[in-house]
C-alpha cells in the first residue's frame, strides 16, 4: 500500500536519506525507528509530498507520487510531527475544510465530522477556536483529519508526543482498528514500547540507511539478542553504543 523504492534525498553533498526501501502492506502497522537525525522525518515528508526526493520512487495505493500526486495523496492520511492547523477556525470548520480538500461531497461531511469528533473525544469542543486547544487536543484533531477521508494508508510521525496516557491509549486503539480494516500504517516513533506492542514489522534507519527490517523477533535475531530482550536494548545494539557511557561522563 505504501511502497518506497531506493529513496534518496541529498542536501548538497550530504545524503540525509540513502537508498531507503520499504513496503507497508494493507492492514500492516510498520514501525519506522532510528536515532535523532537518522532520516526518519525526511523520509516521512517525502512520502507525504512535502519534499522532493533526489531519486527513488514512492507509491501509495499503486499511484506514483511523482506522476499521479493527487491520486497518491488522496489515498494517504498524513500526521506530521509539527502539524499546522488554522488557529482561528473551529474544530468542525477545520474538518469540513479538510473534507473539501479531499473532494468529499457535502452530504457525507456533517455526519462524518460528528463521528470523528466523537471518536477522538473532541465533540464538546466542536465550535471552539482551535487556538484555545491544548497540545494533546490539537494532536487528536490532526489525527481525526488524517482519518477523516478514509485513507487506504496513513503515515504518522511521532504520534504519541504530548499525549496523556488516555490519549495515547485512544490513538493506539484507533490505529489497531484501522489496521484491522486494512489500512496500512507507517509510524515513525522514538517510543520503542509502542513499536514493540503495536507494530507487525519494523525498519530501523541510521545515517539515512535501513540497517534492520522485519518483525520484532526477526530484528532481535539479527542483533543477536535473546527473545525476551527488550526492543530498547536491541535498538541500542544496532544503532551503536548503549548511551550509558555518555550519560556517566556528564
Amino acid at each position, binding site marked *: 500500500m505504501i511502497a518506497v523504492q531506493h529513496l534518496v534525498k541529498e542536501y548538497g553533498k550530504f545524503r540525509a536519506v540513502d537508498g531507503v526501501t520499504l513496503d507497508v502492506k494493507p492492514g500492516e502497522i510498520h514501525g519506522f525507528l532510528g536515532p535523532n537525525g537518522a532520516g526518519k522525518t525526511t523520509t516521512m515528508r517525502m512520502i507525504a*509530498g512535502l519534499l522532493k526526493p533526489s531519486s527513488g520512487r514512492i507509491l501509495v*495505493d499503486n*499511484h506514483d507520487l511523482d506522476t499521479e500526486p493527487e*491520486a497518491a495523496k488522496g489515498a494517504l492520511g498524513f500526521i506530521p510531527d509539527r502539524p499546522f492547523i488554522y488557529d*482561528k*477556525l473551529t474544530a468542525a470548520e477545520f474538518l469540513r475544510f479538510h473534507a473539501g*480538500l479531499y473532494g468529499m*461531497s457535502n452530504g457525507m461531511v456533517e455526519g462524518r465530522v460528528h463521528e470523528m469528533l466523537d471518536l477522538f473525544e473532541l465533540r464538546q469542543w466542536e465550535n471552539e477556536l482551535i487556538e484555545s486547544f491544548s497540545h494533546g487536543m490539537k494532536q487528536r484533531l490532526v489525527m481525526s483529519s488524517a482519518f477523516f477521508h478514509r485513507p487506504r494508508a496513513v503515515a504518522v510521525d511521532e504520534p504519541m508526543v504530548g499525549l496523556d496516557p488516555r490519549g495515547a491509549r485512544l490513538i493506539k486503539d484507533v490505529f489497531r482498528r484501522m489496521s484491522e480494516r486494512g489500512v496500512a500504517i507507517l509510524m515513525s516513533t522514538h517510543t520503542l514500547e509502542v513499536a514493540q506492542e503495536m507494530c507487525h514489522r519494523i525498519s530501523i534507519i541510521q545515517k539515512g540507511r535501513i540497517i534492520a527490517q522485519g518483525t520484532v523477533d526477526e530484528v532481535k535475531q539479527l542483533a543477536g539478542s535473546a527473545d525476551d530482550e527488550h526492543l530498547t536494548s536491541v535498538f541500542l545494539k544496532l544503532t551503536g553504543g548503549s548511551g550509558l557511557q555518555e550519560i556517566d561522563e556528564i
Partner: protein
Amino acid sequence: MRSDAPSPALVMSGSRRTVSFPYLLLPAIWASRNRVRRRERGDSLRGLLFGSIGLVVVVALASGSYWLARQVSAYEEFGDYLLRLGLSWLFLSFLAFLAFSGVVTALSSFFLADDLRLLMTTPVAARRLFFARFVRTLAAASWMVVVFMVPVLVGVGLGRHAPAAFYIASLTTIAPFATIPVALGSACTLAVVNIFPARRARDLLMLMGLLFAVGIVLLLRFIQPERLMHVESLPDIADFFATLQSPITPMLPSFWAGESLFAGIKGGVDWLHQAALWTTAGAFTVLLGWAHERWHFPGYSRSQEAPKTRFARFVALDALAAVLPLSDVRRQLLVKDVKVFLRDVSQWVQLLPLVALVLLYLYNFRVLDLERIPYMSGFVKNVYAFVNLGMAGFVMATVAVRFVFPAVSAEGAAFWIIRTSPISMHDFLWSKFWTALAPVLIFTELLTIAANLLLGVDPFLQVVAAGAIIVLTFALVGLATGLGARYPRFGADATQAAGSYGGVMFMILAVLLIIVTIALVGWPASIYMMSKAGQYRWRLTPDRQAIIVITLSMVVAICIATWRVAMRSGVRALDAMRG
C-alpha cells in the same frame, strides 16, 4: 466505532473530484469571520484609530487630486497633456512598487506560509493551488495601491466632471494593471527560490528591498522635483514631466493605464490600451501558472531544506561588550539581543526604507534654495525647527513601536529561559531599555541636529531641540519597553505585536507626548525668538525668563515621569507573571 473501511466512493483513484481554487480561500474568510465574532480587547480601539486615520488620508487624497485636476483643467489642451502625463507617471510609480511587493508577498504565500505544510499533502491540483495563492498574493501586494488609487481617481473624476465611463474604466484598468507587475514579481521569486537555497533566497529578496529603496531615492533625485519650487513658467513643468518620458514608455502597462483613464475622462473607451492591459495580464497569469506547475514543488521542497548557512560572528560586538561597565547578566542579555537582531535580515532590513526617507528629507534641505521660497525665509524658518522636532518624534515613535515595543514579546517561546534563571525582571527589562536607547538616541539626535543645521535655525533653538530630543527619547523608549512588558504577545511576530492593543496604546500615548512636548518647547522658544526679533511687547522680562525655565523644566519632568512610571509598570507586570 462505525465502519472506517476505505470506501471507493471516498477514495477515488485518478478521477478524484478536486476542489475549485476559491475553496482554498475559505480558511482566510472563515478566520476573518471568527475574528469579527470573537473580538479581542482593543480591537474596537484599534479599528477606530486606524479607521479615523484612514478616513483622513482618503479625504486628503481625494481633495488633493480634485484640487490638482481643477487647476490643470484651466489650461485646456496643455492641461490635458499634463493630466495624461501625470496619470502615466502615477501608474509608473505604482508599477515598480507592485513588482517589488509581488516579489516579497509571493515568497511568503507560495513558499514560506505555514498552511502550505497542510495543503501540499492534500490532493489539490497544482494549478488550483497556484490560482488560490496568486489571488492571495495579488490581494496582499496590491491592496495599498488600490486604497491609494481609488480616492485619487475619484478626486480626478470629480475635478474634471468625468462621465460614468471614467469610473468604469478605472475599475477595468486597475485590476489588470495590478496583475501584470505582481505576476512578474511572483515569477522572479519562483526563479530565485529555485536557484538559491531558501534562506539565501530570503536574504536576497531582502537585499532587493534595499536596492528598491535606494532606487526610489535616486529616481526622486534624478527627476529633481525641487525644480517645481521655482516655477517661473509653464514650460518648466512640461520639461519636468518630459523627463519621465522615454522611448520605451509606450510599451509599459503604466502608459496603457494612463491612456485608458484619460479616454474615460473624455467620455470614450480606449479599446486598444484596455485590450493591451487585459491580454498582457491574462498571458502573464497563464505563463506564471504553467511555470508554477513545473517549478513550484521543486522550489517549495528547497524552501523546506535547512542547509548550513553562513552567519556573522560579531567578534567586535563581543569585544565591545566585554569592556562595557555592565554586570555579567546585562552583558549577556545585550550581546544576545544585538546578535539576534543583526542576524535576522528580515528585521533590520525594515529600517532601510525609513533611513532612505530620512536621508531624502535631509538632502532636500541641502539642495533647496530656501531663500527663494518666501515662507521658508526669515523668522518663519525658525518655526520649522519644531516641524523637525515633530518629525524626529514621529520617526522615533515609529521605530519604537516596531522594534522596541516587541522586545519582550520577541523572547517568545524562549522566555522560559529568563523566567527560570536567577535574573530579576528589573534587570531583564532595564537591559532591554538600554539596548534600545543607544541606537534610537543617536539616530534621532543626529537627524534633528543635521536638519536644523541645514535649515540654518537659530542656535538657541538648535540647543533646545537637541535637548528636547534627549528627554523625549528616554520617555518614548521607556514607554515602549514598559508597555511592551505590560502587553506582551509571546506567540506573535514583531509586526503583529506592534499592531496589538498594547502597540496601539503606545502610539496614542506617544503622539500625545510628542504634541505636549512640542507645545511646551514651542511656547518659550517663540517668546525668546520674538524678543530677539526686537519686538518691544515681547521683551525678555524676568517673568518671561521664569516662564521659559518653568516650561522647559516641565518638559523634562513629564518625560522623566513617563519613562520611570512606564518602566516600573513593566517590571511589575513581569513580576506578576512570575506569580
